[in-house]
């Protein structure tokens, strides 16, 4: 193995060098996150003395208690959870149905529907918000709970369709053929075959939806700004300016509450995130 011999010392040196450079980049990337977490665990006095470091014997959870004790933030957290759960459940259900219809049933017009679903990538909420605002205004839904949830009822499950339909088409068609030849009903095939096969795809969809709904501040800002009770966590955090450094602890506690769920999910399912992202990229 000439190749093995060629490697060795020069290679090890390059690896160490690469490791150091990458470690520096990783530290730069992770530092702001560390800072927010550390600040949220410090009393103001401790923060002033030691703004960057972390003294483990002086960690406190007072900031969290205060933040969660205030009705506003607790309410916003609950709103965010409701909206996110609704968004994820609806999107996953509609993704599964549409992927099954387009991938398995293959009705006349399914190709066209698939194409439309892909092209939705081009439009963002910021471009179509005025007509949607006018519509919900006309329906007298602005500043109600409905306007926070409805977008997911009438949202196009683009990612689910693209990933799901493509995935189903790659399944050997004999599986479906056999089921239908034996007279299985469409409903049963969907539940006992495709829903199971689609599970990994639906997980990707769920995670991507969770991330985007949980983070979204634009639509709540447009639609429920006038009703404080309906503010979600991101909407609340963007309206909150840390007036002076004495508020930093609580501010960072709020930010951590908002960030933690996503980071935890990401750490467990980073593979799904990367998969969903590259699929989204292919669509665009």
């Amino acid at each position: 193995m000439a190749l093995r011999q060629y490697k060795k010392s020069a290679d090890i040196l390059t690896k160490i060098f690469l490791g150091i450079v990458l470690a520096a980049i990783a530290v730069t990337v992770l530092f702001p996150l560390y800072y927010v977490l550390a600040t949220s665990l410090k009393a103001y006095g401790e923060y002033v003395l030691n703004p960057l470091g972390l003294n483990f014997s002086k960690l406190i959870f007072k900031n969290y208690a205060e933040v969660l004790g205030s009705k506003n933030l607790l309410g916003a957290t609950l709103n965010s959870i409701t909206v996110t759960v609704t968004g994820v459940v609806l999107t996953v259900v509609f993704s599964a149905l549409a992927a099954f219809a387009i991938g398995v049933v293959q009705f006349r017009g399914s190709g066209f529907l698939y194409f439309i679903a892909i092209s939705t990538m081009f439009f963002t909420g910021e471009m179509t918000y005025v007509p949607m605002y006018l519509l919900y205004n006309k329906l007298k839904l602005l500043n109600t709970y409905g306007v926070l949830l409805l977008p997911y009822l009438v949202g196009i499950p683009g990612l689910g369709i693209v990933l799901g339909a493509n995935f189903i088409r790659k399944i050997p068609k004999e599986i479906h053929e056999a089921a239908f030849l034996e007279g299985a009903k469409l409903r049963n095939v969907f539940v006992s075959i495709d829903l199971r096969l689609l599970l990994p795809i639906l997980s990707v969809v769920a995670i991507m939806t969770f991330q985007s709904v949980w983070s979204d501040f634009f639509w709540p800002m447009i639609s429920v700004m006038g009703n404080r009770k309906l503010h979600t966590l991101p909407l609340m955090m963007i309206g909150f300016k840390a007036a002076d450094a004495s508020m930093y602890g609580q501010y960072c506690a709020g930010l951590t509450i908002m960030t933690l769920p996503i980071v935890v999910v990401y750490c467990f399912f980073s593979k799904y995130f990367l998969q969903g992202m590259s699929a989204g990229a292919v669509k665009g």
Partner: protein
Amino acid sequence: MKKTQNTLLIRYRNLKGWVLSSQVVVAVLLTMVYPIVFSLILSFTDLKLSLGNIKFIGWSNYIWIFGRDSGFFQALLVSMGFSAVSTLLQTVLGFLIAVMLYFMSGKLQSFFKTAIYLPVVLPSAVVSAMWIMMYAGDEFGLLNIIFGLTNPPFQWLGTVSRSFIAVVTANTWRYLGITMVIYFVNMNAVSKDVIDGAKVDGANKFVIMMRIIFPLTWSATTMNIIMSMIGGIKSFDLFYLFQTNANLTYELTPVSVLIFRAGLGNAQVANIRLALSVTMSLTLAFILMIITLATNKLMSKKGDE
């Protein structure tokens, strides 16, 4: 057509198919067809936020946008400049980091990949809050603490050009992971034989990177450039949040923020002409479409050569 070959035995296939995807149909009509058609109509009216009587006023909105005092071109310039610089940075850095990852292996590789991608999944409210704390122009500004610039505190958002660099930096921090991962995935699709062959021939890592990996991942470059360019031009969150929470200068108002401020973002002013906001949205969508098609065409030609 090939569809008929794959057809399964399903009774009432078309009916059932449409029923199953009825939500998609409603969604497309309501969130795509309706906004686009309605926007087109609105762009020829004088619709105001107060929603009084609406008159058709012909091309006036379009003429106003392309006139001098609309600020549309200045904002477009900001968006495009921001997009160009961010795209360059993200593509070059993304490529370099992906190559470094490529030459590593095992657990460290996946740790670095996961870490560098992490900011991509963070809410923009958090990203902007973090960077506003970094840039804070007082003695608690993080960068001021790190670099010992507390007396007097350095104003990271003090001038237009500094502010521009500040937003670009925050944006690159946030999205670098995407370009990196797209490159990384494409690099791993390059056949190992090609690279091993080059190694046997005595090529060093730099040569391999420039002469083999770079040309063979051209499709990733195309995708990255198009994505970062469009993302950059549409960019809204960071600019908007920096302006509302950190007094970022209004000279750095990108089109998306201008569109928002010309419409609902300024809801106190009831006689604001909502139709102008809609018209700018449509114009921006049109410009984006042209840019995407043009870039795609240019880059794919170069790839064929």
